[in-house]
């Protein structure tokens, strides 16, 4: 399983590096513009963090689409992987992309500080909240895909459960943004993300067709 996950990460690494490169470019441009505008601080840290996090999320969507188009399940299931392991590869991939983009955030923050001359770090907790949000959105990709697949394969009950969880996760995310912008809220978001991952794995295991 880890071998397959590593291979997928290597395969899509240029997309991630490209996305992070674009994010860095945008942040630097923003920092330089703000430096020369009157009385402005550098861009707030949560704004800087948002760009690489969006890059990680978008790359996870692109990877999901490519893997589906390239029928990757056929290749991996011809080997020693079980559907459950393959499902975990599918749900861990977005987590890895967002995780790697989180690792890039301090580097980009440092570059933005250099470009802007000064920096506002007081918004870092908001950046953490953003990271959780984008991770959750990235995990909704596989969940939505499996819910659709269940409906397509006439596993209507499974499909309904999938879409109900999908909607539930979105409600939790919205609720946490509006009501619970605290540690407790973050905890609820993590729970929602883990539930989304587990349900996607369970739905994948229940597939009756692994050709797509």
């Amino acid at each position, binding site marked *: 399983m880890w*071998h*397959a996950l590593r*291979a997928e990460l290597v*395969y899509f690494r240029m997309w991630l590096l490209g996305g992070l490169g674009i994010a860095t470019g945008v942040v630097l441009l923003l920092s330089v513009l703000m430096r020369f505008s009157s009385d402005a601080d550098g861009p707030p840290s949560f704004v800087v963090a948002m760009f690489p996090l969006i890059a990680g999320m978008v790359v996870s969507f692109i990877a999901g689409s490519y893997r589906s188009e*390239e*029928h*990757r*399940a*056929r*290749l*991996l*299931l*011809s*080997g*020693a*992987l*079980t*559907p*459950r392991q393959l499902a975990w590869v599918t749900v861990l991939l977005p987590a890895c992309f967002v995780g790697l983009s989180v690792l890039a955030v301090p580097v980009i923050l440092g570059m933005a500080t250099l470009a802007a001359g000064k920096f506002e770090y007081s918004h870092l907790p908001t950046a953490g909240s953003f990271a959780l949000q984008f991770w959750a959105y990235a995990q909704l990709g596989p969940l939505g895909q499996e819910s659709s697949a269940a409906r397509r394969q006439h596993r209507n009950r499974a499909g309904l459960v999938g879409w109900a969880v999908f909607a539930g996760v979105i409600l939790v995310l919205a609720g946490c943004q509006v009501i619970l912008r605290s540690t407790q809220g973050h905890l609820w978001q993590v729970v929602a993300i883990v539930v989304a991952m587990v349900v996607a794995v369970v739905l994948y*295991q229940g*597939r*009756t*067709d*692994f*050709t797509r």
Partner: protein
Amino acid sequence: MADHRPNAAPAASLSGLTKRFPGFQLGPLDLVLEPGTVLALVGPNGAGKTTTLNCMAGLVVPDEGGTEVFGKPVHSTRTEYRRDIGYVGEENGFFQGWTADRNLKFLAELLPGWSHDRANRYVERFALPLDKPVNKLSRGNKTKLALVAAMAHGPRLLLLDEPTAGLDPVVRSEVLDVLWEITEDGEHAVLYSTHVLSDISRLADELVFLRDGRLVLRTGRDELSEHWRRVSFRLADDDVELTGVVEHRRVRAEHQVITREAELTLQQLTDLGAEAVEVSRMTVDEIAVQILKEGHHVARTES
């Protein structure tokens, strides 16, 4: 060619295999494939050939019935049977942006039993370009790559969906030779679907005809060509009814028929006093075309 050792498990056995889609049902199919046999699945588009192969490879879960490969049940949650299977489908899931070589290296780490020597041997025989990305390979070269990937871990059962589609005649011949060699030891088996009917006479020991998801006919290749004949004759009576005839044409005074029961038809013609009777053999692919055209009729009479 078939392995008749009493304790040898069949290479594959399908029992009551059924898969339903809206407007289509495959099966129930019962089929046993012995080691050392090459079995061709023949049928028109939408006959259920690919679904049968996908069920056998564990990629599609049947609604009823099941499959065993060398005595091991095919089930999506198990992996034991997969070591015995090499599968070539229409799509094979390769990393399209990677070269053929890199894909093979990835599979070498993923598939237990992978032999680099074996892989290199097939790469050379098929003249597969290893340095090109998969998305830049022609359809034929993609098929070659899929064949190398399917055979390099030494599976005992090859499931091939249209394996010669898109191949040039030289490579096609090479592929058919390799498949033939694989089954020569009596321990390996090949089940393949094809539209290229000329492949059948070259490779298949047995033929299974599918139509609308149902098994129309299962027969040995030699047995098939034994009974089918093209017969021309002259007879005064225009409305003659002949046993076993699947096609009847009248060209001026001459009758031309295709029969799947040559002995009976010829006996009847003798009894009726037919003149200028000429009998010619038919090739296996010609017979296959007739069976597919007459699918329902053959199914009814054979049963």
